[in-house]
């Protein structure tokens, strides 16, 4: 089990994360927050790229910094800006990272072939990556993260910049990889996690705001979300969420603390509603 006890990260006088307490046991954990909320800071602490200024991060009761290589040996990490050598082929790059991950040569070759097959890059495994699409690069990224068959798979904004088709493909891939391991997935794109996350973790004002199942988070907004084609009829205050076109009309989805059931249609809240509601102060 991966556990964070009162973890704080400060950069000088700026507090990036404060007093975070979390537990990761198994399944997909989605870190859902707007940019700059501290997702990447948390992920970098979990990958030992940065160190907490307060608190401790434990793996099975031992501090990860003290575990050192033993801990890093069980994690797989796909950074937000996945770095690679453009002149390397996926095969060469995975073999290089296998060496960095201290995987012996034979295992590295075998795992490289398996993973390239899994992410659908077998046919281009010898080609230089400089001509690869964003989706192909991300697939190389997930393959490298899986090289050491990690117990903890950490993915930082893995779908950023991908087209819808690649995003769906990637989501399915993550879902298939989440068995028997902890997957920690950071994103600000709600649709990435709606169907695959077993728990959603939200930060607000650099503190832990929520840590719950998606359904429970959605339930917290039950009875507060409505749709109407005449927003002018809705008494303030209300929070405009999304708009859609339906039969030539603009349907406005909104959240209100007042009962608007007589003038608007009550709808089931989704994770996107929760996201927009929670981070309403951070919108333009």
């Amino acid at each position: 089990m991966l556990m964070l006890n009162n973890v704080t990260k400060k950069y000088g006088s700026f507090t990036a994360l404060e007093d975070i307490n979390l537990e990761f046991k198994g399944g997909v954990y989605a870190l859902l927050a707007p940019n700059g909320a501290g997702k990447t800071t948390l992920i970098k602490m979990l990958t030992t790229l940065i160190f907490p200024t307060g608190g401790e991060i434990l793996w099975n009761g031992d501090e990860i910094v003290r575990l050192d290589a033993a801990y890093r040996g069980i994690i797989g990490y796909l950074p937000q800006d996945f770095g690679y050598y453009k002149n390397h082929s996926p095969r060469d790059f995975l073999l290089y990272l296998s060496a960095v991950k201290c995987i012996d040569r034979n295992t590295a070759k075998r795992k490289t072939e398996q993973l390239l097959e899994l992410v659908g890059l077998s046919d281009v495994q010898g080609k230089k990556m400089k001509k690869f699409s964003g989706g192909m690069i991300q697939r190389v990224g997930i393959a490298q993260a899986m090289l050491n068959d990690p117990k903890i798979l950490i993915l930082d904004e893995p779908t950023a910049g991908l087209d819808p088709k690649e995003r769906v493909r990637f989501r399915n891939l993550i879902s298939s990889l989440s068995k028997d391991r902890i997957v920690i997935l950071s994103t600000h794109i709600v649709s990435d996690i709606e169907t695959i996350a077993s728990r959603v973790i939200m930060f607000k004002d650099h503190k832990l705001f929520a840590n719950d199942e998606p359904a429970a988070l959605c339930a917290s907004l039950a009875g507060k979300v409505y749709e109407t084609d005449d927003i002018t009829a809705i008494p303030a205050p209300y929070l405009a969420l999304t708009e859609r076109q339906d039969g030539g009309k603009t349907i406005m989805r909104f959240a209100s603390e007042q009962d608007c059931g007589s003038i608007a249609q009550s709808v089931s809240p989704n994770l996107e509603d929760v996201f927009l509601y929670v981070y309403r102060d951070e919108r333009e």
Partner: protein
Amino acid sequence: MALIHELKKIWNVKTLIIIFVLSGLYFIIALNSSIQSYPSGTWLFDADIAVYLTENYGATLEQDEFEDFLKLKEVIIFELDSFISSNAVFTGAGIYDFQDYENFRDDFHSRYDTRSEASMNLWIAISNEWGEILRIQIDGEWVDFVSDKEAPAAYTRYIGFNNVTAMYEYQWEENINSFILHTPLGKTETKRVLEIRDSGEMSAILSGHLVLHTWQYAQNLALLVVLAVFILVSPLVTIDKAVKVNLLQYSSMTGRKILKKQFAAVIISAIGITTLLLLCFAGIFYMATGARDFLMSGINSFMSFPYHWLSVTYGQYCLLIAGVIYLLSVASAAIAFVLSRFSQNLITLIFKVIPSFAAAVLLSLWLLDEFLGIYVGGDVFFKAFSLSIIFAAAIGIAIFAVKREKKTDLI
């Protein structure tokens, strides 16, 4: 295994092509001139004689061997006689052998005020055959006559023979005494020069021009080595940072130790490229100059100047130069590694590397200038001390950077 991968990243084809092309150009522009000007550019014409001496007498010339060497003059005179008797300029002037030429020359010199125009023209024509540059005063003005011919081998051998003979018989001792008398040397320098004079090591056979060409060539070669090292190793860590592969490296099982492996790869690569360049370019020098004939000769020789701090052979002298170049190379690699670690991209790296390269160039030139020579301001101990300090500092800073990385946040 990660070390091998880091070495592979350093020794990539693109970089090697750049170094190969650069080395070729550098050889043509800078190195080749040192080779071309030896021994042909040596004004004492002593190089061929030095080869003759080592072939016949070994690394030193003892007095009895010198007596034997003097017999060479007969052979040279015979060669000169043959040249003169088959040359129309000489025979047309009634000069049929070298003795006739010497008589003509002495007569010409003795008639300084009564030279006829005809004898002057004849003197110019004969000097032209010898391949000489002649400066003569005509009607109160000095005029240079530069020969359009190459000096005949017999004549250069003759001049070389005379120079070497004079050097062995008395000049080396006159020179060393004059050096002690007229040079503002310190106590240690004076003691060392006296030791050289009295120890007998000046009987060594080695042309001073070869020593001169060796350290000058080594200076240029050191610059190439330092340049190649900077080009080869400096991008390694910067590129990893620029493309953000360092995030993957640092979060892997190897972790921050990757920097240690990269430092090892940088040092190994610096030694590797230095070895390649030395084998290639020192090899060319070795083959082209005939330096192999003098490997066992002492560098303090009756034929050479300046005098040297160490009583070593020319072979050992070359090894010491190679050692200095290796130390410079490794120190440069360590500095390049540190610069690479603290550069965000290749542009900032280049801006940092240029002044460091310039400093390394100045250091190389200074360290190898008149290498091991005793001259005013050329304190060999200070140079050795400086090199040691710089080497230790460069390695120390690099090790500090590696150790410091363990606690650094990778933002």
